[in-house]
């Protein structure tokens, strides 16, 4: 049945996205990168418009702009002229606004703005699924490779540097990976909500974890649960899929914060 088919695709795509969001999300929470995530997501709007203008693949355009924003932030914050959240505020809303203005100028192309802002998981194609799982797989592999370095710079950058970690390199890699994941996940929950999939499952996992790997794992599972429950709810009550996934993640977070946990 075609109905079941698109729902099946949505679940497969959503699970792939949730796994990688869950793992990278712990670093977003530890390193206070939530605003960075929002900035990259907002810049994705500019990426879409530039992609349309250049006539190139939109996913690729979004990825390139997201990466450019990540690198720009890294370079600007080294100069210490502005605090990082001021820089983020400028880049975030600046790129979103420029994107929206440019979009209104090139009105030859009809673009589903709602889908861009809030995602459209029910329209994912087989190609999207392949991209999500291959892109996610690469990000996962790189994360595993630099795992100790990532933990080390999260605890103390100078100490990591003295111990031989190439801090700048690892940090840039992390920002690029978060940008990649946002470019991927934006298709599913949209520009406005995408950071929530990085933050909420990781926050849910904190109370039940005694080690960093455990927290990443629980965070990934919480994300998968949110995708499945959100899509089921969306199917049941005919609510928009992207927001429903975020509501499911939020419900799990709220529920988990009232469950008593024995702290040994």
């Amino acid at each position, binding site marked *: 049945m075609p109905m079941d088919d698109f729902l099946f695709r949505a679940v497969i795509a959503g699970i792939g996205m949730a796994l990688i969001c869950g793992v990278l999300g712990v670093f977003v*929470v*530890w*390193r*206070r990168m939530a605003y960075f995530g929002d900035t990259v997501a907002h810049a994705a709007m500019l990426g879409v418009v530039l992609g349309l203008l250049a006539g190139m693949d939109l996913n690729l355009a979004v990825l390139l702009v997201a990466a450019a924003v990540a690198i720009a932030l890294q370079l600007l914050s080294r100069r210490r002229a502005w605090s990082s959240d001021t820089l983020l505020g400028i880049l975030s809303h600046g790129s979103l606004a420029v994107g929206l203005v440019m979009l209104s100028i090139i009105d030859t192309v009809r673009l589903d703005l709602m889908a861009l802002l809030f995602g459209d998981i029910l329209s994912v194609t087989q190609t999207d699924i392949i991209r999500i799982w291959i892109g996610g797989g690469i990000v996962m592999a790189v994360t595993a490779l630099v795992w*100790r370095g990532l*933990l*080390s710079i*999260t*605890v*103390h950058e*100078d*100490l990591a*540097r*003295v*111990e031989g970690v190439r801090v700048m390199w690892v940090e840039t890699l992390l920002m690029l990976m978060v940008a990649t994941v946002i470019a991927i996940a934006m298709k599913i929950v949209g520009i406005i909500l995408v950071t929530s999939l990085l933050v909420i499952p990781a*926050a849910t996992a*904190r109370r039940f*974890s*005694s*080690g*960093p790997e*455990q*927290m990443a794992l629980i965070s990934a599972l919480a994300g998968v649960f949110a995708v499945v429950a959100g899509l089921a709810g969306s199917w049941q009550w005919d609510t928009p899929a992207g927001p429903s996934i975020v509501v499911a993640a939020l419900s799990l977070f709220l529920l988990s914060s009232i469950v008593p946990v024995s702290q040994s």
Partner: protein
Amino acid sequence: MTLSPTNGSLLQVRGVSFVRNGRKILDSVDVSIEPGRIITLIGPNGAGKTTLVRLMLGLDKPDSGQVIRLSELIIGYMPQRLAVPPFMPLSVERFIRLGVRSGKGADADALYDVAAETGITHLLKSPMQGLSGGEHQRVLLCRALIRQPQLLVLDEPVQGVDVGGQAALYQLIARLRERRHCAIVMVSHDLHLVMAATDEVLCLNGHVCCAGHPDTVSQHDEFLALFGPEVQRSMAPYTHHHQHRHTLQGNVIPTPVDELNGGADDINSNHHDSHADG
């Protein structure tokens, strides 16, 4: 071009100056670190102690002069402040293991040996966030040691530790040197808490005011009042031998010969004030 330190030194700071925001923080500083020796950097707040340490570690680059390290020099570093993010679950054991690449001396035996040496075996399973000041510093020391360093750099190792714990920590550091024969560079902003075990004291105030062996046990009234005779054995105040005055920026004011004694007294009370503030 790679230079290497002369005379068997591990690390040499040669004529190093460092300027930040138009202010000269260090001015032609020379330090040489020999294997197995303890050097303590003292001086008032803002004297450039931490800056000098960062230059030694290669975390900052000097504006002029050179910092020359033995190639492949293994440094164990204990930073002044370290707070694990509150939402990051990390046990003490895991934190310490972050200091070494897996398979590089990270085996369980090595870890337990160093944990026993620093007296934190009972804490290994505890989360990093709940440690007391003294426990926290010992854990940092343990992470620095697990790398089997030739040089140990400790930036205010007794920070946040109560007075009794400070004495114990200084004794531990002295024992580490005896057992491991590693060189130690230690920062203290406290003139009166310099270990008897330190081989050299470097008094810093933008430039090197004076350097040399600290006097051993002293009968200093204030010292006795603070710590009592039993702790006194492991510590000694450092009496200044230099004979010049400072401006507020730490520049030396030439002192006429007939005022020498008065000048030296001035310096002591000046340093004492900054200690009381800190």
